[in-house]
């Protein structure tokens, strides 16, 4: 029996999602009895007394304005400025995709490392500091490594990040610059992950997505909290979320559940749709086949940040899509690039490949009527295109070089846009 003391903030215990067995609020992520994932259990009665719309609005515009629903005991010490990214009304893209109302939740401009991972890392490292760790680590497809490296540097923590050896150069440099130990593993992400699970069992480090995962994963809820607040305290009818492990999708769902349970938003129905790349689609393949379990895959896609062939939360993501009446689909590498361009050309937002997946799948689901044309949808954009330039090089045209000469410019204009040349 674990005491619900104030020293644990609003957390009560870690609890197995499968069998309900409770554990102390330590750095541990797996139930000893059935290997089920441990999840943070909260004292919602106390939270309801503390967290109101007025209180939230009185706080700084960061993810920590929902502090009661995030799993740390005291005040955040790492990543206090993270979150509250723009929710953009995307009318031009809506018109192109054929839907009445469309919003982009733009974590491509999250602080400090331009992806939604800053949310989970802020929570994981703040909690790691509370638990006394001085060394932090992660298994990553790139964005997480960037965020752990940057936030660890700012907090003065020692940092090891483990990544597949063949990541985009932008993502590799974006970890090295912060002075982290960057270890490239000759293998795909699932192998990096397995190695990290073994290292975490041996070294007393805080692996944000291994032994710290129960805390870490909760940080993703803040993306959903912000969506609801920024929409004017309501739950969107449709939300499209890209899936790697599937964790973000399950936590967006949980954020809608928690806000409606606390009375912060009216409880209206919502559907959550999952997006993957066709070259790594274990979850959407199972969803389309009507299965509640997935088959592991060997990834082969330009969407490297989503290239997890053995998704940890695949089972729960499938359940969320089923329970909310959402669907799943996947898109090819060419459709991913097209999605990136659509978002850029219509809304001026340059997303990484995962964003191209989200836009591409949204387009398919709207065309198929699974997201009705008369409805309203939010697309979760999770990372920045400047980090995955490799994926679009050679696919977005080339600049035309000319001499610094007005005559050359007008000759060029006459060839390409004759209507613009003065008579």
């Amino acid at each position: 029996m674990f005491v619900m003391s104030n020293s644990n903030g609003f957390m009560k215990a870690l609890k197995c999602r499968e069998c309900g067995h409770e554990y102390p609020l330590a750095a541990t992520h797996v139930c000893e009895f059935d290997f089920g994932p441990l999840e943070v259990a909260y004292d919602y009665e106390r939270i309801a007394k503390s967290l109101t719309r007025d209180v939230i609005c009185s706080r700084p515009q960061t993810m920590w304005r929902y502090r009661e629903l995030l799993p740390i005991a005291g005040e955040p010490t790492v990543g206090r400025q993270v979150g509250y990214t723009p929710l953009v009304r995307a009318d031009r893209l809506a018109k192109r995709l054929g839907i009445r109302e469309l919003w982009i939740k733009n974590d491509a401009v999250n602080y400090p490392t331009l992806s939604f991972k800053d949310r989970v890392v802020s929570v994981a490292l703040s909690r790691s500091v509370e638990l006394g760790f001085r060394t932090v680590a992660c298994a990553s497809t790139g964005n997480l490594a960037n965020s752990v490296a940057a936030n660890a540097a700012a907090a003065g923590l020692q940092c090891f990040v483990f990544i597949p050896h063949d990541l985009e150069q932008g993502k590799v440099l974006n970890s090295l610059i912060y002075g982290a130990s960057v270890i490239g593993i000759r293998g795909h992400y699932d192998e990096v992950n397995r190695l990290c699970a073994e290292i975490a069992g041996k070294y007393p480090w805080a692996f944000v997505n291994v032994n710290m995962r129960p805390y870490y994963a909760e940080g993703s809820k803040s993306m959903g909290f912000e969506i609801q607040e920024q929409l004017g305290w309501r739950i969107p009818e449709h939300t499209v979320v890209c899936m790697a492990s599937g964790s973000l999708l399950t936590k967006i769902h949980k954020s809608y559940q928690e806000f409606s349970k606390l009375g912060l938003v009216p409880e209206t129905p919502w559907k959550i749709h999952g997006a993957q790349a066709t070259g790594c689609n274990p979850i959407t393949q199972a969803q389309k086949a009507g299965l509640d379990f997935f088959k592991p895959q060997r990834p082969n896609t330009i969407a490297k940040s989503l290239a997890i062939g053995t998704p940890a939360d695949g089972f729960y993501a499938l359940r969320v899509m089923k329970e909310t009446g959402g669907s799943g689909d996947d898109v090819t590498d060419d459709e991913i690039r097209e999605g990136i361009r659509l978002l850029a050309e219509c809304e001026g937002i340059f997303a990484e490949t995962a964003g191209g997946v989200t836009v591409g799948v949204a387009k398919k689901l709207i065309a198929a009527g699974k997201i009705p044309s008369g409805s309203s949808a939010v697309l979760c954009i999770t990372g920045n295109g400047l980090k995955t330039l490799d994926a679009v090089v050679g696919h977005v045209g080339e600049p035309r070089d000319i001499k610094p000469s007005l005559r050359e410019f007008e000759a060029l204009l006459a060839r390409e846009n004759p209507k613009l040349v003065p008579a």
Partner: protein
Amino acid sequence: MPVTIRIPTPLRKLTQDQELVQVAPGTVGSAIAELQSRFPGIQERLVDDVGQVRRFVNVYVNEEDIRFLQNNDTPLKDGDDVSIIPAIAGG
């Protein structure tokens, strides 16, 4: 040289804190059965009622997921390494 099994942290209470356990060659299934005979209770943690490896457990033979091999029937020969890893990690 026998087969070496790496025991994950959540199961080490059952193996008296042994991280590495050696078993006879055979298959993944026979290795789990041998573990059970030496460390009673370990089998039910690893496999479900019908003998399949649990949803939240991944088993690797020489770093390859047994779901890409022959699941429980994956052969184990002298010198092979088996890792049992909680599936819930990463992402």
